[in-house]
């Protein structure tokens, strides 16, 4: 196995270990805790008042546009990371290239700003 794959194997092992640890602790808790459910106990908690309407309430997802913008900027970040590690070698050329790239993105942000989508309505 190559060094790279092996280092990610460790990550995998840690992920499994985290789930195993949570599972083990929940199992211990299962042995120790009482289990006496009553219908009243299982009602959704709404500050002591009986829930009004259905339990699956509808809610407006307010940040749909934010989420789209987020995807955009996140992809941009993925592009900037490799550039950032090699800036010394790229020199002025790389700097100007990235400045143009970031400028275009900032234009996009300002467009969204002017259009008024950066508001939590």
């Amino acid at each position, binding site marked *: 196995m190559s060094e790279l794959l092996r280092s990610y194997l460790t990550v995998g092992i*840690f992920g499994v270990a985290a789930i195993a640890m949570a599972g083990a602790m929940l199992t211990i*808790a299962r042995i120790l805790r009482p289990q006496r459910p009553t219908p009243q106990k299982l009602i959704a908690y709404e500050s002591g008042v009986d829930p009004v309407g259905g339990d699956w309430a509808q*809610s407006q997802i307010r940040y749909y546009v934010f989420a789209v913008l987020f995807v955009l900027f996140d992809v941009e970040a993925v592009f900037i990371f490799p550039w950032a590690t090699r800036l010394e070698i790229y*020199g002025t050329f790389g700097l100007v290239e990235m400045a143009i790239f970031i400028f275009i993105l900032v234009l996009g942000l300002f467009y969204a700003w002017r259009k008024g989508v950066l508001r939590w309505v």
Partner: protein
Amino acid sequence: MTTLLALPYWQETGIKLGLALVVIPTTSLILVYLFLFKMMAFMQSRLGPNDTGPYGTLQLIAEAIKFLQKEDIHPAQADRRVFRMAPVVVLASTFLLYVVLPAGPDAVVEDLDTGVFYAMAVSSLSVLGILMAGWASANKYALLGGLRAAGQLIAYELPLILAVMGVVIQAETLNLQGIVEAQATGEIFGFGGIGNPFILTQFLAFLIFMIAAQAELTQTPFDMPVAETELVGGFHVEYTGFRFLLFFMAEFGTAFAFSALASVMFLGGWWIPGFDVDDNILNVLGPGVMLAKILLVAFFIFWVRFTYPRLREDQLQKFAWKVLIPLALANIVLTGIFKVVF
């Protein structure tokens, strides 16, 4: 770099895993005791827990045992499987963060080349768990809290990543050990006595990182997802007993991990001025130095948490998109210019 011990892969990983299983819960215990119990109490002119053990240090053990004995209640309407998985996902995200955190030249679980990138990716996994918890609870408050948390975490993920970029440009590597080395061997205007902790040259990035981290950790003033006064606990309102404790542990474990990231990237990590970067003694002294720096950073996080009132949801979004992101982008360009010109 010389290796302290040469062990087969499985043995080495086994030892590290065993250590991590002890260290990770301990870190969140330290933070809860020192800051949530004691510091918060003193800031509010009260004593905090002081009955159980010397200075109340055993209070946490008592709390854990209490949580173990609590009945596990699932709301009748809840999506049981997702409801049960959610805290485990959040805890796993915290756990995976610790894989790359270095405490000495060799004292790191796995020195991934993509260090910073990996840490950012893994830390955003917790959003999934929080959204799962909010949605599966079949509770209006939980749903609102979960959606708020998702909106907040995606908004502050960006300044966090973009702020880190300045450090990456200076260090020319994503590897966390590489970043520590770059700070240790760096010079400020020809003076290399204390290296070049990036907090000096990347102060703006440090500020943005700390503010964004505060929001990522959903600490006050950015705690709308769990706001007690309006959402009675937000996404974890329906959780009881040990599942709630998992969320709680993950919250403080992540706070510790983010403090560690900040001290590695901005405060020079485990390096002590006057030592070689790969000196073996740093494997012993490094963890102590790291702990001191982490507690310092965590102190600031909790100081802000206990001092400031909560922001409003629209103010929070406005601040991320209209202040932090433009500032972080400007920081990248400025750092780039300085890097190329000097």
